[in-house]
């Protein structure tokens, strides 16, 4: 009886440990994708940004209609990149997963040059990543809007 109790406790401890390790791995994976965004946006590397998206992703930028598919999303990003963003920083607030979907909530701060001045544009976002057959995460849904405090 005592042996069984110890075994059960060990199994629970191992499960919690595995879950924490899994959460840590998930966070690292998402942060790695964030790093790609953060480096690609200021350098206007549109192809690297688009590589983050699924073929039939939906993108809901701060204004206008829902963009569906890479072609429409690329057009939206081209307009965003025309704003002369020289720094782009993402801060994850929460990451969680369920099945093949990973949900990420966070904040962004973009430094934009406009008429010789630097302005700071703050946003908050929800990304829904979907795990692909090869284990990679691709953006399935993305929505952002202005953040008035940070």
């Amino acid at each position, binding site marked *: 009886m005592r042996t069984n109790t110890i075994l059960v406790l060990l199994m629970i401890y191992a499960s919690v440990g595995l879950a924490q390790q899994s959460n840590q791995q998930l966070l690292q994976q998402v942060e790695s994708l964030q790093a790609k965004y953060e480096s690609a946006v200021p350098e206007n590397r549109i192809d690297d940004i688009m590589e983050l998206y699924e073929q039939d992703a939906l993108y809901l930028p*701060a*204004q206008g209609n829902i963009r569906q598919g890479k072609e429409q999303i690329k057009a939206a990003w081209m307009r965003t990149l025309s704003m002369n963003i020289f720094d782009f920083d993402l801060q994850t*607030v929460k990451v969680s997963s369920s099945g093949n979907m990973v949900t990420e*909530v966070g904040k962004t701060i973009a430094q934009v040059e406009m008429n010789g001045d630097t302005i700071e544009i703050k946003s908050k976002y929800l990304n829904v990543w979907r795990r692909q057959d090869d284990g990679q995460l691709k953006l399935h849904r993305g929505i952002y*809007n202005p953040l008035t405090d940070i």
Partner: protein
Amino acid sequence: MKGLMIILTLVFWTTITAVGQDKTLTDIVSELGDEFERHIPTKRIEAIMALYSEDAKYLPDNEGLLIGREAIREKWERDLKYDLQKFVMTPVTVEGTKRLIYETGTGESTIKTNGQVMTFAFKYVNVWRKEKDGYKLVIDTFNRASPSGSGKELSAQ
């Protein structure tokens, strides 16, 4: 014969119950949307808050990132001071599992202010989680669907 009738009746009611319980994700989300559409114009704050999980995150347009029911409630109390005449949500995509549902959609809210009626189009992504007392929003976020902006956002127009 009587036994057969009882068995047939039991089979009939079991089937009806099973069909009624076998809702699609779209059905579930439509019903939840209907609740929002009912409660917002009638300012039923408790009913609105009952749709959020305790740890919900609400990302309303042009506001902070609100975490937890208390912060979300404060935001809704402010918004319900407006004369919201109509609120409509239309799902565009619904996917996930019975445990966690991802909804993308468009909507319109109609407000009467200074004698004028104005309609605002928006688009949204909701994440619903099944909890003990029903489906709750764990993430609620929206932004405007109109082209004009304040100039203080990353533009995609």
